[in-house]
């Protein structure tokens, strides 16, 4: 098959299982259009390869979850857990994302051109997330590694119980979560923000003027006598 021709898989006709099975059968590098997704859950999960997948409309939970490699473009909004546990690849949502976007992602880049809801980047394990708009509360809860760039404002309890992940916020931070602190932007941070913004295709980020949030590391080891606050 010519890699330049786009295969069309109709989600209404094939169902999600049919679409996912057909996707796996296409040669690596194929270009695919998933038509009529109609908010279906689990589109394109568990794909290991470099397909180029366009989802033509809104998708439900876990779009592109458990994937290693593919590039997704979603022309619409997505439900919970977009790109959950992503290992590598790019997911670009031209719309908004519901809760737990990029949960536990180990690698890859998740781009949201609108807003992301609660717990964006929860348990993040090395992946990168770039949200053009704002993020809801408890964003980056227990995030372990990776970077989150937020173009707009961040909700309450940002970075609660953070480990080594880092958050950059272009707008206002409503409040910080336990053990999160605002830290100084270094030259490396500025470079990282520029790199993320460029990869995401954002031109509204002033890399020198973002707020960096990282772990204060006061909860790394238990100590009942230190009045640790959780």
């Amino acid at each position, binding site marked *: 098959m010519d890699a330049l021709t786009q295969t069309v898989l109709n989600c209404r006709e094939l169902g999600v299982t049919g679409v996912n099975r057909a996707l*796996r059968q296409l040669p690596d590098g194929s270009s695919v259009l998933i038509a009529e997704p109609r908010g279906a859950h689990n589109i394109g*999960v568990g794909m290991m390869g470099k397909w180029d997948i366009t989802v033509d409309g809104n998708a439900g939970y876990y779009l592109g979850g458990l994937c290693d490699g593919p590039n997704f473009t979603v022309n619409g909004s997505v439900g919970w857990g977009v790109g959950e546990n992503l290992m590598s690849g790019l997911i670009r949502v031209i719309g908004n994302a519901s809760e737990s976007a990029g949960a536990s992602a180990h690698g890859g880049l998740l781009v949201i051109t609108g807003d992301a809801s609660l717990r964006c980047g929860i348990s993040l*394990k090395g992946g990168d997330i770039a949200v053009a708009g704002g993020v809801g509360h408890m964003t980056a809860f227990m995030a372990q590694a990776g970077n989150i760039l937020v173009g707009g404002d961040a909700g309450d309890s940002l970075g609660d119980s953070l*480990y080594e992940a880092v958050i950059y916020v272009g707008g206002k931070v409503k409040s910080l979560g336990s053990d999160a602190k605002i830290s100084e932007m270094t030259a490396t941070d500025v470079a990282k923000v520029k790199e993320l913004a460029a990869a995401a295709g954002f031109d509204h980020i002033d890399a020198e003027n973002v707020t960096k949030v990282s772990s204060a590391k006061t909860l790394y080891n238990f100590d009942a006598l230190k009045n640790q606050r959780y």
Partner: protein
Amino acid sequence: MDTQAGVPERLEPERQSATFPLEVIHRIQTMSQTGRYEIRGWGAKRRVPNFDDLTFVTASVSRYPLEGYRERCDTKTVLGSRFASKPLELDIPITIAGMSFGSLSAHAKDALGRAATIVGTSTTTGDGGMTKEERAASKHLVYQCLPSRYGFNPHDVQQADAIEVVVGQGAKPGGGGMLLGQKVSERVAGMRTLPVGVDQRSASRHPDWTGPDDLTIKIAELREATNWEKPIYVKFGATRVANDVKLAIAAGADVVVIDGMQGGTGATQEVFIEHAGIPTLPAVRLAAEAIREVGKTGEVQLIVSGGIRSGSDVAKALALGADAVSIGVASLIALGCNASHYFKDGEEHDATADYLALGTSPGHCNRCETGRCPVGVTTQDPILTERLDPEISKQWVVNYLKALTMELTTLARACGKSSVHNLEPEDLVALTIEAAAMAKVPLAGTSWIPGHSF
């Protein structure tokens, strides 16, 4: 009075307080001195109603037994036949429970995996993901999807033989995992994406779903990612058993795993271990009834764990409705946990002093959380790890699993069953009123099931 001042003529007989026995006094002293509550390994240590409180009413004139050692008594066990195109087919209904690399040493995991493969049963990963060694050692490997998602990898999802979505465990239903800094070695930290030496507190909730409706979608996601081939288990700590089982079935589980309050752990708060969850005995009956009530008996399988030690425990769990059991602590004891000696370089060495250094002795140890296991089972220390010879320990686990199976079939044959799965509640009576009420079998010598008949 002609005795010396201050020395009483007669000593009062020593009387220990039932409310404040020595153990409680000791605990209060520790808390007041350190400000710490106890964190430890293993499961509940106090006595709770258990399978010992039941006995079999084996064959007599009205039911005839099978010949021991001659007539066949089948132990084959199929798990995941509801939706998975490749269900697990095991030779025995006794599986090895989820225990992580990190909590357990690499040698211990390897020995368990190879032993399970030899007897034809499954092992289960734990927090921190799947190691190459473990995949290679275990023919049937169940891959846990835990709230922490440490080391969770879609490639491992696809090379697992079944997936277990862990909602909770018996030792700490409602709590996340815990691995103290001394066990977070470089390899463990790397697998979990954590800084070395951090006191790791795993999440207690899944990051990407909450509630039964989400669970339905999560299970569907795992099925899609595995092409509907692998059985999906859902594991709970035994609390609100009937509701949890029904919700898991509604969400599309193939297998439900219920871990009673005696279930063990590598490390958690003692208060959690002893004071949360219900015992395995009522849990198995509640779960089996829930499956029956939704009409899924035989379609959805039930695995029960938490304090299973003997073939009689297995037989009783199966009679009350389980399709299989899981063993954790018992398998570690078979590996050498709590033994006074260990074998290294073909020689036996005394480990008593090392137990003493942990403030304990062989037979009383529950200090897995320290990472200083005297016999190399639950440690990441390179020297201590060498105290577990995977070859010798593997054989001990094989012996133990075979002996358990023999005990199980002995009882099943005596009840006249040609398959251990034909054991039924009618084969049992209870020795205590509590057990009669919880297992819903009559008190021995009566027809009385408390709460059901008079």
